[in-house]
């Protein structure tokens, strides 16, 4: 029961920065918010394998192929860590997958864009993983224990992701004029969607209120976005690429970069299913899941047979 007493005690634990664990009492809205956020995060890791998986067979060298495979395998792992964390809140893996397939649960809309050139693989690692890292570092301090532990594990694995992407971009930028152009084109296409990854401005963010009070989120969308911009502009300069924002300028007094307006109309379009690849991404996941049904059946049958043998022996 959500007595004021329970709520007060809960908030005291949160305010003391003690983690909430699965069996602890928690408000229903806290549980719901976490399930929504963690499952969305897990689905993003898994769907995020698709744009990169698209390049495994076409990676330009064996080195690049090995790196890409390792990175994608990490992303699968991130999805699994997060599904497990989410399951501690009393929802099953099957339900989570079901919610993805029916569209009840979302995933980050960045993965609805296509990776059309090799430079896109660089841009994804550098910018998309880069933005994810800023968010995930902040979430290491989230109030829910299993989510926090998953974030700490994920952050340890992420820095290679960003560096391998930046390395690809740097190499292309120093290559032939065509290669440099390819890198610049990828930056042009991925920059704004990467900024959108942090979500709406604080002034119109629908889920943020309680998430901050309950310390599920520790910093606001705009604060995290600004941190990402401030880090990334310098990195672009070093490799001689130009951030596609005419309004981008250093604000000496504030010590931050000012940036141009984000196209929220595009953001809403992609979130609502009208991005370039929404339908294909989901269809791929559904067919992989359905085509794997016989594997799950076989594994269950094998487990049942083993149990019988134990009983007989």
């Amino acid at each position, binding site marked *: 029961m959500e007595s004021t007493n329970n709520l007060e005690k809960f908030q005291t634990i949160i305010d003391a920065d003690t983690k909430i*664990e699965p*069996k*602890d*009492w928690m408000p229903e809205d806290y549980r719901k918010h976490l399930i929504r956020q963690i499952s969305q995060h897990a689905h993003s890791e898994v769907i995020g394998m698709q744009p990169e998986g698209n390049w495994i067979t076409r990676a330009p060298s064996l080195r690049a192929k090995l790196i890409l495979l390792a990175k994608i*395998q*990490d992303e699968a*792992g991130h999805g*699994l*860590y997060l599904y*497990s964390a989410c*399951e501690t809140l*009393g*929802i*099953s*893996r*099957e*339900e989570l*997958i079901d919610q993805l397939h029916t569209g009840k649960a979302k995933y980050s809309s960045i993965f609805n864009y296509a990776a059309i050139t090799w430079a896109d693989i660089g841009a994804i690692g550098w910018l998309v993983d880069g933005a994810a890292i800023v968010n995930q570092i902040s979430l290491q301090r989230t109030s829910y224990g299993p989510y926090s*532990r*998953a974030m700490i*594990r994920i952050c340890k*694995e992420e820095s290679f992701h960003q560096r391998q992407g930046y390395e690809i971009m740097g190499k292309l930028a120093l290559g032939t004029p065509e290669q440099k152009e390819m890198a610049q084109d990828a930056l042009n296409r991925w920059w704004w969607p990467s900024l959108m990854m942090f979500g709406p401005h604080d002034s119109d963010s629908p889920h943020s209120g309680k998430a901050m009070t309950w310390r599920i989120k520790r910093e606001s969308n705009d604060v995290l976005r600004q941190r990402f911009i401030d880090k990334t502009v310098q990195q672009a300069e070093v490799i001689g690429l130009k951030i596609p924002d005419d309004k981008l300028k250093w604000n000496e007094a504030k010590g931050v970069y000012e940036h141009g307006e984000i196209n929220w109309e595009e953001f809403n379009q992609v979130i609502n299913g009208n991005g370039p690849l929404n339908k294909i991404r989901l269809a791929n996941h559904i067919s992989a899941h359905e085509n794997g049904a016989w594997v*799950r059946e076989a*594994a*269950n049958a*094998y*487990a049942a047979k*083993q149990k019988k043998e134990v009983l007989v022996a």
Partner: protein
Amino acid sequence: MSTKDSQGQLWEVFIQANPGIPHKHAGSVHATDKEMALQNARDLYTRRSEGTSIWVVPSAAIVASAPEDSGMLFDPSNDKPYRHPTFYVMPEGAKNI
């Protein structure tokens, strides 16, 4: 939690990071049998030499204390100071004790 799930049962994974130290909880995996659980745990939690040994335990087999009992179970026993070495008065000059 006994929600319907076609994804295999849940196993808790414990990893020993280096020889000689205790196994520590790393997370969980789904698997339909113990070999699969061990293999999945290997693939998921030790891709970067995180461990030298893995235990997997069916989550359902773990008996855990309830949060509401923690006051009683983990009372600091401040009324039993004689459980700590500082309770005892040592004679002046005694060494190595």
